[in-house]
């Protein structure tokens, strides 16, 4: 019985990230779709220490993790963790990542949950601590010395007398045969020798010399090449496939049609590409798309699934009695993951088993998806993670794994599928478009008395999880239904405050039946979210909805502070209660040498190039890491071009496991956030997506004038370990938008801040001010 409970506990902690990396609106359906997690337990029992660790007779430690590295540094930092807990150097640790045949099922690597899951007192960290205690216990017996009188140095356990024994002699190649002990003592950050140090990423030499194996490089004997032929528009269905149209293509093995899934397989990649290009498919058109220019209004009119996250039930009356009410609506577009490498996978589906080499974030869920697609039992499907290019969430790694499985099953040979850039851009699971409507009332003293926020996000498909292969395009085309929205009216919130992907602003108290879980002080509060059906596939994109919501909250906070003529930093501090939030705001202001005054600059010129500074801060999902960002920008008022000149970030993610990896994530996050703020937007016409390559989808290239980036890290050794990869990116759009306002007096409430939108805002503000 006990075992069952702790198993469930394990899976809950692993499974929690599904919730955390999805939108507020996804929470309930995912909980249902995932079902009781323990029905999906793998054969690798996480209760057993041997599922996590093995020590060979030469002292080498092999560790198994269900959290994998996409370039965000999880490989290096988990290796550090195991080395630290076992008191060995990192070159003695061999880390095996995400392989359904050997690693524990830790769900999906996402949602800034890898560090919380594996670095706190459970899972990988606790397993490594258990192993160290077990080895010391064995050494104590062997040496006849009490355990507390032994010391460990690089895998050698020694007594004061000088007698010693090596790990390899104690356990070498044998099973521990014990369970992971919840009471095994973790090494304290004050003792750390490997963790907490700026260990450079362990893959860098292989990457720089072109020898690193990506999933794109996987080659297996007998492998042939597949390409897919996607419908030109979401919802189009196959009317006819003219196989004769490709009969002349050399090397063609097969045209594969299953429901609306169409693909080709050929001996060589170029032949498959040619066949996919010339194959004549007649598609029955899907439904027309809503007009992009009216899309945000359209979203608000759709039937929605509502969630009331917090409601003090006095918002209307407080707004009526406020000395001034401010209102503003912010909108954010669909954006693409836009991975550098178009996605790729290799599958070998045979009669009784299948192997898939995949860059998925979710090997176990993908095992179940491939099982559903091929009809093989899940246990007969092995999914092996091989890194792809940076994914930033649910890119097309899952769908291309399905593509490869479908094609391989049809030809009984291993098939490698390379998606094209266009395949991926037209049908990936985009980051959600959002509308966020805000209103707030201030009292006579200029303090915010009431905050009312209503959000709309779009949803269709998403992470496939264990039971929804239709949540990505290949699964849907093959005949599986995607998750969609069931409209529902909100009920009053109960229990713990749910942060709802940062739909809850940092400045409200977050009180539910007297218990206040928010980070702010505003007691009159209401947050209502709506999820509506998306015409396109959607899915988690780095800081999903947290980024969109934070853009709206942090810009609105800025608007209010400008109205009451308060300094934006001081005004934030006035409404925050959470110490860690207060500390990052103070730290960033100090490091940036913050110019303490209200925005906008009162003497800014109306022409030429002007400069301004803006701030934004966030408690990621309420309590998973804290950051504040100051942006300094230049705005050329003639061309309406925005040029960030300097960013200063303060970040607190609890105990810092690897300061170099953390800085790398912050640097990349702020600049990726800048690209998303200034240019990135999915576009479409009445039938299809029109942003299909790097010319029609804007991204900042390497040749930009890179702004100065300064980082203040706040280390909290005693706190829980938090995620760190999605915190800084969450702030870029808001801080830049606030800096543009400071420089020009123009408020831009729509991402991205294209020169057209900046120009429009500039002319509006000139008109108003004169």
């Amino acid at each position, binding site marked *: 019985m006990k075992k069952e409970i702790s198993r469930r506990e394990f899976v809950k902690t692993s499974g929690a990230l599904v919730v955390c990396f999805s939108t507020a609106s996804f929470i309930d359906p995912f909980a249902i779709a995932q079902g009781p997690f323990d029905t999906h337990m793998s054969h690798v029992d996480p209760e057993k220490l041997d599922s996590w660790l093995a020590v060979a007779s030469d002292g080498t430690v092999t560790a198994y993790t269900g959290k994998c590295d*996409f*370039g965000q*540094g999880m490989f290096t930092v988990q290796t550090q963790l195991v080395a630290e807990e076992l008191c060995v150097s990192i070159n003695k640790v061999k880390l095996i990542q995400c392989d359904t045949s050997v690693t524990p099922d830790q769900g999906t690597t996402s949602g800034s949950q890898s560090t919380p899951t594996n670095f706190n007192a459970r899972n990988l960290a606790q397993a490594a601590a258990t192993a160290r205690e077990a080895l010391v216990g064995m050494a104590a017996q062997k040496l006849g010395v009490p355990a507390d009188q032994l010391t460990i140095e690089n895998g050698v356990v020694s007594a004061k007398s000088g007698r010693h024994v090596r790990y390899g002699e104690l356990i070498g190649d044998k099973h521990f045969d014990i369970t992971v002990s919840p009471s095994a003592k973790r090494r304290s950050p004050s003792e750390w020798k490997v963790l907490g140090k700026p260990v*450079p*990423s362990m*893959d*860098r*030499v*292989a*990457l*720089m*010399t*072109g*020898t*690193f*194996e*990506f999933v*794109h*490089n996987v*080659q297996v004997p007998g492998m042939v*090449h597949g390409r897919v032929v996607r419908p030109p528009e979401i919802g189009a269905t196959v009317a006819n496939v003219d196989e004769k149209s490709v009969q002349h293509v*050399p090397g063609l093995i097969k045209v594969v049609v299953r429901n609306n899934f169409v693909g080709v397989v050929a001996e*060589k*990649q*170029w032949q498959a590409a040619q066949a996919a290009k010339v194959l004549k498919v007649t598609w029955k058109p899907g439904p027309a798309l809503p007009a992009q220019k009216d899309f945000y209004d359209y979203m608000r009119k759709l039937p929605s699934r509502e969630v009331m996250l917090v409601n003090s039930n006095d918002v209307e009356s407080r707004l009526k009695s406020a000395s001034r009410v401010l209102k503003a609506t912010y909108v954010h577009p669909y954006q693409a993951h*836009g*991975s*550098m*490498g*178009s996605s*790729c996978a290799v599958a070998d589906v045979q009669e009784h088993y299948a192997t898939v080499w995949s860059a998925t974030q979710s090997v176990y869920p993908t095992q179940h998806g491939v099982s559903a697609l091929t009809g093989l039992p899940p246990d007969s499907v092995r999914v092996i993670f091989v*890194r*792809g*290019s*940076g994914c*930033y969430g649910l890119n097309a790694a899952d769908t291309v794994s399905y593509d490869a499985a479908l094609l391989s099953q049809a030809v009984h040979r291993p098939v490698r599928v*390379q998606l094209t*850039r266009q395949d991926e851009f037209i049908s990936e699971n985009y980051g959600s478009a959002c509308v966020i409507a805000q209103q707030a009332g201030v009292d006579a003293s200029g303090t915010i008395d009431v905050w009312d926020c209503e959000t709309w996000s779009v949803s269709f498909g998403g992470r496939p999880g264990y039971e929804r292969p239709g949540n990505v395009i290949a699964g849907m085309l093959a005949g599986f239904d995607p998750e969609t929205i069931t409209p529902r009216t909100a009920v009053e919130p109960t229990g713990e405050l749910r942060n709802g992907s940062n739909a809850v602003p940092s400045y409200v108290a977050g009180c539910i039946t007297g218990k206040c879980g928010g980070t702010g002080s505003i007691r009159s509060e209401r947050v209502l979210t709506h999820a509506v059906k998306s015409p396109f596939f959607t899915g988690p994109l780095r800081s999903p909805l947290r980024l969109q919501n934070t853009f709206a909250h942090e810009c609105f906070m800025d608007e209010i502070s400008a109205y009451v003529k308060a300094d934006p930093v001081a005004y934030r501090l006035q409404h925050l209660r959470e110490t860690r939030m207060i500390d990052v705001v103070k730290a960033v202001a100090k490091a940036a040498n913050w110019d303490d005054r209200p925005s906008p600059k009162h003497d800014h010129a109306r022409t030429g190039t002007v400069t301004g500074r803006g701030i934004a801060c966030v408690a990621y999902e309420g309590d998973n890491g804290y950051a504040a960002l100051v942006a300094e920008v230049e705005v050329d008022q003639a061309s309406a071009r925005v040029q960030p000149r300097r960013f200063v970030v303060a970040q607190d993610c609890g105990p810092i496991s690897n300061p*170099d990896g953390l800085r*790398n*994530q912050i*640097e*990349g*996050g702020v*600049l*990726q956030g*800048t*690209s998303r703020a200034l240019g990135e937007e999915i576009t479409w016409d009445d039938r299809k997506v029109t942003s299909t*390559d*790097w*010319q029609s989808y804007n*991204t*900042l*290239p*390497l*040749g*930009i*004038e*890179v702004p100065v*980036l300064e980082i203040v890290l706040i280390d909290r050794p005693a706190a829980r370990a938090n995620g760190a990869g999605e915190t800084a990116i969450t702030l870029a759009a808001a801080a830049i938008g606030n800096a543009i306002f400071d420089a020009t007096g123009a408020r831009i409430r729509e991402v991205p801040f294209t020169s057209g939108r900046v120009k429009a805002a500039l002319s509006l503000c000139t008109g108003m001010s004169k």
Partner: protein
Amino acid sequence: MMGAISLKVNGHVHTVDVDPETPLLYVLNDELHMRGPKFGCGLAQCGACAVIIRGQTVRSCVVPVGAVKQQEVTTLEGLGTPEKPHAIQQAFIDEGATQCGFCLSGVILTAKALLDENPKASDDQIRDAMSSVLCRCFAHVRIMRAIKRYQRGRA
């Protein structure tokens, strides 16, 4: 359509039996098992597939292998080895200038081609050369530091 094509890559001559219209990238990856150049966009827009031919970076995803003829092709793995990296690779290693690393052929080879031709390239010229190269992890800060480190080192 197939035919034996002779190709000199990283100092070695290879003969491959492929359609001469096949993009050079597919030959490097599928026939010669090279991991340096990568399929990014297939449209010569991102740089992930870059190789050096006659001192210039070339987007191998759009160059037919038949057009390469006798010109030597240098890929990222042709610069140096993990044991003995080229100076520019070493500069990138020292700066830890990457996240996922998928962009590195475009990044490193473009910078190398520029600085080989113009060792005193100004920051503007470096930016200009890198304006057609993407890094979607946005490791820009470290990448620019690594390029400058290499430039200083070769002066």
